[in-house]
């Protein structure tokens, strides 16, 4: 009886071990897959030519595969989204964490949860029908589908992430810091911005990095509002991001063609960006926990 029980226990232990390893297996699978499918394209095109040439003409007679426009567009778009999203998010977080009375806090937090839950295609739809014509009229440009529209949509989309993580970081600041500041004669507002916020800065940095990760990875909403031309980025230009570059030409590229291999390579570049951003995120999160 005991041996049978022992065997059963070991078996179950093994089953759970396997289940636990599934996550690791998935990460390995994704990484290996992207690397294997992305490397051939980069090899054929040449690393520097791929990453730094500013023209992308995949269907021309003499196709050129430079992804610099996509890289710069993703960087500028993310930077713009951060520029708008972080101040609004941070200030809202300070209010939520320190000043809001419980009832108002509940209302605002549910508004934030709502923003977090809206599907990205809905953001894209609203952007397509309000933001794009709005930009066209407001700035007298021929077509409102532009980098600016994408920046605004991305800023709204990353707002909930920034707010949530910043609130957690601000609430974790030890009460003693704030009490000491108040005892020394600072007003509450001064305390929150000059003592609590700097004390929470690792967590707030983590919030920003999280926002960066979301912005650089967004595809659907951006596809609907940014036009789709592989231009070098300009605020009112129709642009293509790394994400939309992968998505747009996938359907009409033929398997095995250099065009399709180039698309895989773009996915690989995007994935590497994401891994770097995640590493930065982990770094800031670990620092904020000490």
């Amino acid at each position, binding site marked *: 009886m005991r041996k049978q029980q022992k065997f059963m226990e070991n078996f179950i232990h093994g089953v759970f071990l396997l289940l636990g390893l599934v*996550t690791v297996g998935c990460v390995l699978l994704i990484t290996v*897959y992207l690397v294997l499918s992305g490397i051939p394209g980069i090899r054929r095109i040449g690393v520097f030519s791929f990453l730094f040439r500013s023209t992308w003409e995949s269907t021309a007679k003499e196709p050129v595969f430079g992804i610099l426009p996509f890289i710069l567009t993703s960087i500028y778009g993310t930077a713009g989204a951060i520029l708008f999203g972080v101040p609004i998010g941070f200030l*809202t977080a300070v209010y939520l964490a320190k000043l809001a009375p419980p009832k108002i806090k509940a209302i605002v937090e549910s508004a934030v949860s709502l*923003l977090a839950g809206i599907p990205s295609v809905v953001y894209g739809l*609203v952007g397509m029908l309000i933001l794009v014509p709005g930009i066209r009229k407001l700035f007298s440009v021929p077509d409102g589908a532009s980098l600016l529209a994408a920046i605004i949509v991305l800023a709204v989309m990353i707002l909930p992430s920034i707010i949530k993580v910043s609130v957690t970081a601000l609430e974790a600041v030890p009460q003693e810091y704030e009490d000491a500041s108040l005892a020394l004669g600072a007003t509450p507002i001064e305390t929150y911005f000059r003592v609590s916020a700097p004390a929470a800065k690792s967590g707030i940095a983590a919030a920003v990095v999280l926002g960066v990760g979301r912005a650089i990875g967004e595809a659907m909403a951006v596809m609907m509002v940014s036009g789709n031309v592989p231009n070098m980025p300009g605020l009112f230009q129709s642009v293509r991001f790394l994400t939309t570059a992968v998505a747009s030409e996938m359907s009409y590229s033929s398997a095995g063609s250099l065009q399709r291999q180039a698309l895989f390579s773009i996915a690989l570049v995007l994935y590497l960006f994401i891994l770097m951003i995640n590493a930065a995120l982990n770094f800031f999160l670990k620092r904020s926990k000490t």
Partner: protein
Amino acid sequence: MQKDKSVSNSRKAYIGAMKGMMALSVAVTCGLALFLILYVLYKGLPNITWELLSTKPSVLADRIGILPDILNTIYIIIATLLVVLPLGVGAAIYLTEYAANPRLVAGIEYAAETLSGIPSIIYGFVGMMVFAGTLGTSLLAGALTLVIMNLPTIMRTAQESLKTVPQSYREGAFGLGAGKWRVVRTVVLPGCIDGVVTGCILSIGRILGESAALLYTAGFAHVLNGFFAGIRSSGASLTVAMYVYAKDRGEFEIAFAIAAILMMLTLAVNLAAVLVGRYFKKRRSL
């Protein structure tokens, strides 16, 4: 707090400015949420007709119906949950109950964090190659892709609620002579039901809103199917259908109707999460 006369004017200006900016930010945030709900519902609700909800698109009758898309979404949710719950809860159990090697635990948790940071378009891409490549463009391929996307969420919520099971419960069971698996099965698992339910609701919310991962793995067909036939064939979910109707076909009224439905479902899921959270808190404190 009394206005202290010893606060200098420049400090007062600073405080006023910060207060103003905070008020503005909060107003912008809430205003955006309010505007989005109202605008989408305003433009979408009038277009939700019984005909829309209960038929499939027909070129002959020149109408668009979203019943197939609704069913596809439901099938995808069911299929995803069926696979991700055992995997995620099992992994969480391993991490909290069985794991001995701290480096392995750290490795698994790091892998889960990495998975949750990968954008959905990359999941769609890899899913298209791996799952749709072997299984064909199908709801099943889409569901398996979504399983990997939601695994970290289920693992995290299950782990958190497993940790709330008091160690004394386990020790009591061990003391009475139960083996580890029996302890897990009878003492620990019932204690983590609330985390699992919360994780389910969160996952359902994410799956409802997911589009990039499904577009390339589940395709965009509009065929009415039962569950087992549907799971093997390609089909559009509500989000994918909305995207195609809006961008490729310019059918904005239909798109807004779907958006309104999605918005209401999102609100419902958020509400469910809050209510379930409250219910389990009550049960716990009894």
